[in-house]
């Protein structure tokens, strides 16, 4: 693992930014996460080391992303491609954050970081150079939908960082697409700060090609009366981790999460979520779906933390899993940690296969078994896909999933 060696030695390089230096410093003593810690014990060690095997290539080679056609009304940005953006319209404005603003915000976040919990972020921030950090400040309403792309090209490891400030009363739809090429590793960290009364419909769609890897982390800070809706989909990765951390700093905020991960062949995809309520009247509705086929492994761990201050929190978490093969494996662990007493908190988890009665019914109506399974799967997928903004039709996600071999 060349990168780990590099981390161990390379801290005095003058080209490094202050953030890179801080993160490298934090990683130096223990460059890899503790494999026995709760967050990493199910992670496939050889796949993680495969992730780190590629060399960091700061410059992007030209890479054709199979974008669906751009409609005029969407704003499209690619992290790493020197895009200057400054849109100031009547209703809204989208501007790039200055380096100082980005550094200040990230530095503040790093102070809360823990070695195992935020290892992916530390790695990302220590590798991600100035060009691969995109910072945006979004203000206003009636903003056209925004699409942001992040990708890694073959035989390389890319680290890309996105920082977004949603100003007060702002309302936006944003789709983030992470693409992996064959034999590549992408480290994507996103920092979201939702100020008071702001609202976002955030979509995260990540898909790779053969043997591509992804470490995707998402850190969201929600201020009072903000509303954060996340629809996410991860599939076709040799190894992928999606780590979500959401903090409702003063409560009174709403969070909706609908996520799905699909694993086939010998893939491993995991989702880890941590939702903290640091104020009263918080709301959470979370559903996570997994589908594991062939010899793959899907993992979900979600924790909800309700301290004493978070009275009247209403949180629910559901983990639904489909296990379709004798050799596949699913691990799920929804967790509640509660101290406040006047709260409504619940969670549920199920693991099963396709409903036989429904299949039988459809077959008696002349639908073949394959078709009937697809119909069932499409209804299983649809609940999540319909929650992902913008993408719905033009990305043909459902089609991609159903015809994905």
């Amino acid at each position, binding site marked *: 693992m060349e990168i780990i060696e590099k981390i161990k030695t390379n801290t005095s390089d003058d080209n490094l930014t202050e953030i890179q230096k801080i993160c490298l410093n934090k990683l130096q003593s223990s460059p890899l996460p503790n494999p026995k810690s709760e967050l990493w014990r199910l992670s496939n060690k050889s796949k993680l080391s495969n992730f780190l095997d590629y060399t960091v290539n700061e410059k992007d080679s030209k890479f054709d992303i199979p974008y669906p056609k751009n409609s005029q009304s969407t704003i499209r940005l690619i992290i790493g491609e020197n895009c200057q953006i400054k849109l100031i319209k009547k209703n809204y404005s989208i501007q790039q954050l200055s380096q100082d603003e980005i550094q200040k915000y990230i530095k503040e976040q790093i102070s809360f970081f823990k070695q195992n919990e935020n290892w992916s972020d530390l790695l990302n921030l220590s590798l991600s150079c100035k060009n691969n950090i995109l910072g945006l400040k979004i203000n206003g309403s009636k903003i056209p939908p925004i699409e942001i792309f992040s990708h890694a090209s073959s035989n390389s490891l890319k680290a890309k960082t996105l920082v977004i400030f949603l100003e007060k009363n702002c309302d936006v739809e944003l789709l983030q697409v992470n693409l992996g090429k064959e034999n590549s590793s992408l480290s994507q960290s996103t920092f979201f700060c939702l100020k008071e009364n702001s609202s976002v419909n955030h979509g995260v769609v990540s898909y790779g090609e053969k043997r591509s890897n992804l470490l995707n982390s998402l850190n969201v800070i929600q201020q009072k009366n903000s509303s954060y809706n996340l629809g996410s989909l991860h599939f076709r990765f040799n190894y992928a981790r999606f780590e979500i951390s959401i903090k409702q700093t003063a409560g009174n905020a709403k969070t909706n999460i609908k996520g799905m991960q699909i694993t086939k062949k010998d893939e491993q995809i995991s989702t880890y979520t941590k939702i903290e309520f640091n104020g009263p009247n918080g709301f959470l509705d979370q559903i996570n779906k997994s589908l594991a086929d062939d010899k793959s492994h899907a993992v979900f761990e979600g924790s909800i933390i309700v301290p004493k201050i978070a009275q009247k929190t209403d949180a629910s978490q559901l983990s639904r899993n489909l296990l379709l093969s004798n050799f596949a494996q699913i691990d799920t662990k*929804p967790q509640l940690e509660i*101290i406040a007493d006047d709260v409504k908190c619940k969670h549920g988890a199920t693991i099963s296969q396709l409903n036989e009665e429904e299949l039988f019914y459809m077959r008696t109506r002349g639908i073949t078994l394959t078709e009937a399974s697809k119909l069932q799967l499409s209804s299983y997928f649809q609940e999540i896909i319909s929650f992902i903004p913008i993408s719905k039709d033009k990305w043909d996600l459902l089609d991609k999933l159903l015809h994905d071999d």
Partner: protein
Amino acid sequence: MVNENLVKDVVKEPYKYGFVTDIDTDKIEKGLNEDVIKLISQKKEEPKFLLDFRLKAFKKWQKMKEPDWAALGYKKIDYQDIIYYSAPKQKEKISSLDEVDPKLLETFDKLGIPLTEQKKLTNVAVDAVFDSVSIATTFREELSKHGVIFCSISEAVKNHADLIEKYLGTVVPDSDNYFAALNSAVFSDGSFVYIPKGVTCPMDLSSYFRINSGDSGQFERTLIIAEESSSVSYLEGCTAPMFDTNTLHAAVVELIALDDASIKYSTVQNWYAGDEEGIGGIFNFVTKRGKCLGKRSKISWSQVETGSAITWKYPSCLLLGEESVGEFYSVALTNNLQQADTGTKMIHIGPKTKSTIVSKGISAGKSKNSYRGLVKMGTKATGSRNYSQCDSMLIGDQASANTFPYIKSQQPNSEIEHEASTCRISEDQLFYLQSRGIEFEEAVSMMVSGFCRDVFNQLPMEFAAEADKLLALKLEGSVG
């Protein structure tokens, strides 16, 4: 608003089992090493295989680390500061209960345990364990007519060595975990039950564990074997005096159910929990596991955990036999500064196995109550099912309730369902009951017992009533 003063005014029931019996005991020196183990084994006149078993476990224990993954915080235990053998001095062989030291009988009398003849009318056979040693077992003759063996494990080692050698350590291996290894090395006594083929045990069997001395640990070991088509219901109760120091209790319970056999194991745990400041109390680190070896066998755990400063306990079922059934019903109540990390493990190995988990946690005061459970479907567990339900009730805003269910499936043709919820005693409900003329304390107790009903329904009759009362007592003064 709930009147806080009203609650505080309610007279707090002291821990009524907190007395110490003044009796001559045979104690060995503090500390643990091979010689101590040899001494324990020698005192109990054990055969060589058992001494080897102990020494092997001790060697493994020395290499192990105390687990720290549980959501518990307690001061480090000094394992060299514990007495590993303590027994009341009495005549070597007792032929009838009349020869038992009257002080001991009095102790159990005070605890409400029927050892003396006139109290034997209640149809429950009792094995009473005082500190490390079993002092009396009732109803033996009656049981032996049916071929049921119910005695202390030390007696079983002497009289039924073949069964002990065959089954001891087969469910909980000597190196299973840190506390089980320690128990395997130093266990002093416990109960042994053997139900022969086709026999339904004519009465409930019961063990009563009493810790009396403050500086000795209690390490009992229970082994229950249910042969083909047999069934038994076993009850376990525990109390300890009030000491300012923490006493270690590390027990191991092993259950084995063969074809069509069924074992029901019920516990009401009421060890001393320490005072309101969290001083004293029992550290309760227990490994309980049942193995459903036979087809259609069934093991059912039900527990009411109200005592102990620290509880670390996960009664589990290994479901090996086809169509075997595992059950776990639990109420765990923590108050003041108590901490409990408890739950179960249901390991589905055989096909068409079924398990049910119902766990109710109540946390009051500044306590910490966690449910931690594992449900695992192995690759061969086709057609298996699990249903888990974990509910927590919070009383006051200082207590914490955590739920950590681990769910793992490797078998597509199986189903796992888990649900958990958290609630509290709402003021609306209290107001409603009070407006109907029900006293405040009674209203709380009604609501708690309603919350726990699913579990109480599973307890044997006399235990259910006791458990209900126990919860009401423990919660007195905690709602405000």
